């Protein structure tokens, strides 16, 4: 089964979205009735393309945004409002953001950056030598042994900066790790090193993890449960390997089929028929997210029928692990792709 430890099976989910919607001031509906749960000790992956709403989920989880509808809970209790109310909750959440060049303050030394959570929550080590040791020890743990504490981020590569961000995320001993595309701006070889750091941290410190990415393969390696998002909605949730091998929602399969092959022999994108204009990105604008009562993927779905355009598919729970929102789901028979 998943890596969920026995002790936590009955515990409330660490972070739970209950019919959450988010509409930004400009009228854009970023999230439309999302229900998701990060189980205690477990790991949840959100996968989707740009504009799917996955980053908005991260911003809600970090308390940077408030939902316009629905409820967000942390360990069962509702998210408090206001900075002081959120402070105890935020101490338990460590996070790693996407752009290593943007998430570190260029004017602060590496020591101050990593130790900032200690100073915010007035934990021992905020200042002085005790802090230096803590920071140095943590930097060693993330692959920067002997780093100059007084140096500035500008001296480090993208990978180096992401390691500093991980050290900062771990220093206040959080219980949850939230990662928003932590490696999407890094080279593939550097990505493996950073992901392994995150997986080690999760295992050694028994952290629950919310991991967001547009990379299907990466999500499948990092998260026990995967939620596929599109146009601000969750189209399918399930264990990582089932989502990959036998998807229920046509969009999930389309995503998998769009991933380039493993070997020239299994080449299929470059010869037109397999992916011939299937997604019709020839049409100018992004998917309409305000399609209230219809399936949001209807206008691009190869299996779409009239019903999909007039009625919103409810979320159907196939069993305790899998659910999807589609009137004409794929059955197991159709493997749909030749895997390399």
């Amino acid at each position, binding site marked *: 089964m998943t890596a969920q430890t026995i002790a936590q099976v009955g515990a409330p989910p660490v972070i739970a979205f209950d019919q959450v919607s988010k509409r930004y001031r400009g009228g854009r509906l970023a999230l439309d009735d999302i229900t998701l749960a990060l189980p205690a000790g477990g790991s949840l992956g959100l996968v989707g393309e740009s504009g799917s709403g996955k980053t908005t989920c991260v911003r809600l989880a*970090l*308390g*940077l945004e408030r939902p316009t509808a629905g409820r967000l809970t942390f360990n069962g209790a509702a998210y408090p409002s206001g*900075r*002081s109310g*959120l*402070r*105890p*909750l*935020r*101490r338990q*959440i460590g*996070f790693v*953001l*996407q*752009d290593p060049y*943007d*998430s*570190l*303050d*260029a*004017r*602060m030394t590496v020591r101050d950056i990593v130790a*900032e*959570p200690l100073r*915010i*929550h007035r934990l021992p080590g905020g200042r002085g030598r005790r802090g230096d040791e803590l920071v140095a020890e943590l930097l060693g743990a993330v692959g920067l042994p002997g780093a100059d504490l007084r140096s500035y981020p500008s001296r480090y590569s993208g990978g180096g900066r992401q390691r500093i961000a991980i050290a*900062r995320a771990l220093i*206040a001993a959080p219980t949850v790790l939230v990662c928003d595309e932590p490696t999407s701006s890094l080279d593939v070889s550097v990505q493996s090193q950073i992901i392994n750091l995150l997986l080690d941290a999760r295992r050694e410190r028994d952290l629950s993890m919310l991991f967001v990415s547009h990379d299907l393969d990466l999500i499948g390696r990092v998260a026990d449960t995967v939620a596929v998002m599109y146009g601000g909605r969750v189209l399918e949730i399930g264990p990582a390997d089932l989502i990959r091998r036998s998807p229920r929602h046509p969009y999930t399969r389309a995503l998998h089929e769009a991933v380039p092959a493993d070997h020239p022999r299994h080449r299929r994108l470059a010869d037109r028929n397999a992916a011939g204009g299937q997604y019709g990105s020839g049409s100018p604008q992004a998917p309409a997210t305000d399609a209230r009562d219809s399936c949001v993927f209807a206008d691009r779905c190869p299996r779409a029928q009239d019903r999909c355009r007039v009625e919103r598919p409810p979320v159907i729970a196939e069993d305790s692990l899998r659910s999807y929102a589609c009137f004409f789901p794929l059955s197991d028979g159709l493997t749909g792709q030749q895997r390399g």
Partner: protein
Amino acid sequence: MRRWPWQLIAGAAVLAACAGLALAAPLFGNPNHQDLVHALGPTGLPVGPSSKYPLGADLLGRNELVRLVYGIRVSLTVALVSNATSIVIGAAVGLLAGYFRGPVEQLLMRFTDIGLALPYTLAGLVIAAVMSAGITRVIVIITVLFWSYPARLVYGEVLRLRGRGFVEAGEAMGSGGLAIVRRHLAPHVTSMMIAYSPLNAASAVAFEATLSYLSAGINPPTASLGNMISDGQTAISYAPLLVIAPGLAIMALTLAFLLVGEGVKAYNPDLRRLSWLGR
């Protein structure tokens, strides 16, 4: 430490010299002392440059050099004080408006709009009419007119910073509002103001001189580079030094501030420009 850029050194040197002169002003003598016997020639015209009057005398027989030194002292004082006040007020308004959105922001920014809409020199004259001549008047005028531009600059910068990852990270770590302002916003705003203030000081020197020239700043008999020029204007054809000397002094002081500004900009190396064409 990186080598100091030449502009910074040159500018700072000139400023130091002016400051030295300003402090040593009393040693040069009394700027208002009139020596009608020696300073004015038989026809009543001011005597030209000589050992006793290195820059000649002005129309009232006073030593032009002594008045020049006092003029520099006034300009430097005004520049430094009004630069500080206008930038502190402007930065504070910009920082508060940028961080505490909503009613506070609208109120402060509408005041900034008023400041920016004021007809520049005219408003200075109107305020001048309300206050008695002197250094305080000039400092008040410059502060009232100069704070709105840095406020707009800082407001824009704070809005950009709020969207940046490290500010949102600060908040997501649980940092309080004021802690974010103190730890993340203030340092960036400060370094921006350090780079802006030499330009602001240079404009202050020029504007003080302009106000005094329009007799809306520091009026005679107190020596100010501006009113020395307006006094000397009538003698422009036969004693041009009475206009050229204060004019050059103003330029030297302003140029010094500008060079310091260029030096500060050159000191933190932004990206060198690549170009695909051009010689």
